[in-house]
């Protein structure tokens, strides 16, 4: 059926895969009608998809350095776009973002703008130039451009802090989904998630991660879009929700006016389980100051352009030109999901609060809501809670609480879709979290094995030894991440936002100025990375421990402080120390034109 090279057959391979997955969904739907239990369907979905990823990971095993670190630099534009989209869209995007928008409205929609706008910076400032450089990792670029082990080592530190913060959140998400779908305790589910992540990446490195990520993108986008379109038609809101929900958005505003936002007393709120929230902000109106919105968006954009696991995806394209185009495709595939998240939040909210809809619960009696099946299920999972604060026997808007994850995970069930859709959504969430965790764990272990072990400790190491070290580190980092994830220190969305701020504090200006400012030198870059990271972290700790902060910069936007310090210190230190030598200046010139050999190949 399939002849010739794998790369030439990609559309066919993934076409068959997508068809197979759709057939699997239909089979599950038939099985559900035939009486298969909801629990078994959930297990089938998660187990089947994870096994497929593991199979792809095994088939992509490799013993070559180039394949392990950069997938042999032959990933075609569109497929790299899909892989980047999966790499990028984490458990937070998939399960938590629609929830954030549901609760906070406009203020959180800054994340949508920030997490897409950042790609303009990636395409125009960095990706093509780093591709021309021909490095294996982001610290590889810093270390070679600026020269010296200290610069390389500092870059590894920033990378590790940012990526590790991020990866614990992703392993936490895989654990949450695995524990719900497979019905096992969270402490064990975290390690099940970890095992699946390692199966995808250990044998084949970047090559395996690339091809599993494409497969994971296909699963996650089907799992996100299908319910949105289905619920929209079912509610009679229109068959294409993105263009047709204006009336529903207006209806929510009308209902909000009618119910009002009643403030609960602190004593009442103390009875609500931790992590659940009520609707306290208007859905579509502008409820945040311009600065609050813009500062969050700016942090997410600069963070996007500095996160190494995204940047290293563009090292895998065949050329500079394809790297640039590939960024466009990445953003297109991300756009498909991101433009749907606010639609899902709208549909979810309307179906819960509109008393004229059969699914609406506001205005019903407390006893009536408590007897609803889905309420009981999600209440048991600690994701939903109601309480009759004012004692009138009727559920009010301020008496209904939900976890952020429930917006994505529970809405299909609330809207009365068959359980097969809930199983599909669980598989999608798993795919989203796994694909990001894979990319992150690989980014950290590649930096440690390539930049610390090979470049600094043992430059004479043979290929086989380098790859063994890389794999051992991969497993160790995975375990460390899972162990911390099991402690559940910070929520998923919160840790992800922190990771962006860390990356922005330490890496944004050293990366950008490395290409765009020839005068930037090693002492400047080291000062920029370390002082940026330290000041950002210090600000975070100060605000977390009760500090008042300044300029309205919160613990979610501390990257502004870090990157400002980073920029100033980098420019000042660069200018008071000697200019880079002629060879380095020549290197920067070579990076700026696409033709010719990669900079590293010339050396």
């Amino acid at each position, binding site marked *: 059926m399939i002849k010739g090279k794998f790369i030439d057959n990609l559309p066919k391979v993934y076409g068959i895969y997508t068809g197979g997955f759709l057939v699997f969904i239909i089979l599950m739907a038939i099985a559900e009608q035939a009486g298969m239990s909801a629990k078994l369907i959930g297990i089938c979905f998660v187990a089947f998809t994870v096994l497929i990823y593991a199979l792809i990971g095994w088939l992509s095993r490799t013993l070559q350095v180039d394949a392990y670190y950069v997938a042999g630099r032959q990933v075609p534009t569109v497929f790299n776009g899909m892989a980047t989209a999966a790499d990028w869209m984490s458990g937070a995007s998939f399960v938590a973002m629609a929830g954030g928008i549901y609760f906070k409205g406009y203020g959180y929609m800054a994340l949508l703008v920030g997490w897409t706008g950042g790609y303009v910076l990636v395409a125009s400032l960095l990706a093509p130039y780093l591709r021309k450089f021909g490095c294996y990792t982001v610290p590889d670029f810093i270390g070679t451009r600026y020269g010296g082990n200290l610069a390389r080592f500092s870059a590894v530190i920033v990378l590790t802090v940012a990526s590790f913060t991020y990866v614990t959140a992703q392993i936490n998400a895989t654990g949450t989904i695995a524990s719900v779908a497979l019905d096992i305790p969270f402490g064990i589910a975290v390690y099940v998630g970890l095992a699946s992540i390692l199966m995808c990446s250990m044998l084949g490195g970047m090559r395996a991660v690339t091809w599993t990520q494409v497969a994971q993108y296909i699963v996650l986008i089907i799992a996100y879009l299908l319910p949105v379109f289905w619920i929209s038609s079912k509610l009679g809101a229109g068959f294409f929700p993105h263009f047709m929900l204006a009336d529903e958005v207006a209806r929510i505003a009308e209902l909000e006016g009618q119910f009002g936002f009643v403030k609960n007393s602190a004593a009442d709120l103390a009875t609500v389980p931790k992590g659940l929230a009520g609707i306290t902000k208007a859905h579509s109106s502008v409820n945040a100051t311009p600065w609050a919105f813009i500062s969050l968006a700016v942090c997410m954009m600069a963070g996007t352009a500095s996160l190494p696991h995204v940047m290293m995806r563009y090292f895998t394209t065949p050329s500079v*030109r394809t790297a640039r185009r590939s960024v466009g495709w990445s953003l297109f595939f991300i756009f498909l999901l991101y433009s749907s998240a606010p639609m899902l939040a709208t549909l979810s909210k309307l179906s819960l609060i509109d008393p004229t809809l059969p699914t609406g619960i506001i205005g019903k009696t407390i006893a009536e809501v408590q007897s609803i099946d889905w309420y009981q299920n999600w209440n048991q999972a600690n994701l939903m809670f109601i309480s009759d604060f004012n004692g009138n026997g009727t559920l009010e808007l301020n008496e209904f609480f939900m976890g952020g994850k429930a917006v994505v995970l529970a809405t299909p069930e609330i809207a009365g879709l068959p359980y097969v859709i809930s199983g599909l959504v669980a598989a999608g969430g798993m795919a989203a979290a796994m694909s990001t965790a894979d990319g992150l764990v690989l980014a950290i272990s590649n930096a440690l094995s390539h930049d610390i072990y090979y470049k600094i400790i043992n430059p004479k190491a043979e290929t086989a030894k380098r790859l063994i070290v890389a794999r051992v580190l991969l497993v160790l980092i995975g375990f460390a991440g899972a162990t911390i994830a099991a402690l559940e220190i910070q929520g998923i969305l919160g840790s992800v936002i922190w990771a962006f701020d860390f990356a922005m504090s330490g890496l944004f200006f050293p990366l950008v100025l490395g290409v765009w400012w020839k005068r930037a030198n090693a002492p400047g870059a080291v000062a920029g990375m370390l002082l940026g990271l330290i000041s950002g972290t210090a600000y975070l700790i100060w605000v977390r421990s009760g500090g008042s902060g300044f300029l309205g910069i919160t613990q979610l936007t501390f990257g502004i402080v870090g990157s400002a310090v980073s920029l100033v210190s980098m420019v000042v230190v660069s200018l008071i120390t000697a200019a880079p030598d002629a060879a380095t200046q020549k290197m920067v010139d070579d990076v700026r*034109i696409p033709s010719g050999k990669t900079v590293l190949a010339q050396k």
Partner: protein
Amino acid sequence: MSKQEQHWEKTRNLLFITLAIWFVFSIGIFLFGAEMQESSIRPFGYPLTYWFTCQGSLAIFVILIFWFAGRQEKIDDEFGFSEREGDQ
């Protein structure tokens, strides 16, 4: 001015234009979020600011990157700096 300097000047100008458009739709318009929300321009019936955060800005970024890539390729071709087979 050498060929390479000219190429870099054009590249830099393209960067400035791209970043200017990016700035308008990621930061500029949200300075006026409250005012735009009241506007009578309502794409697909959505309030204007709401629409930009949901779809408008996002879609503009996608188009912007492809436009940028096309323009940059033209600049590279003009100066003969495009990649050729076997470069890598």
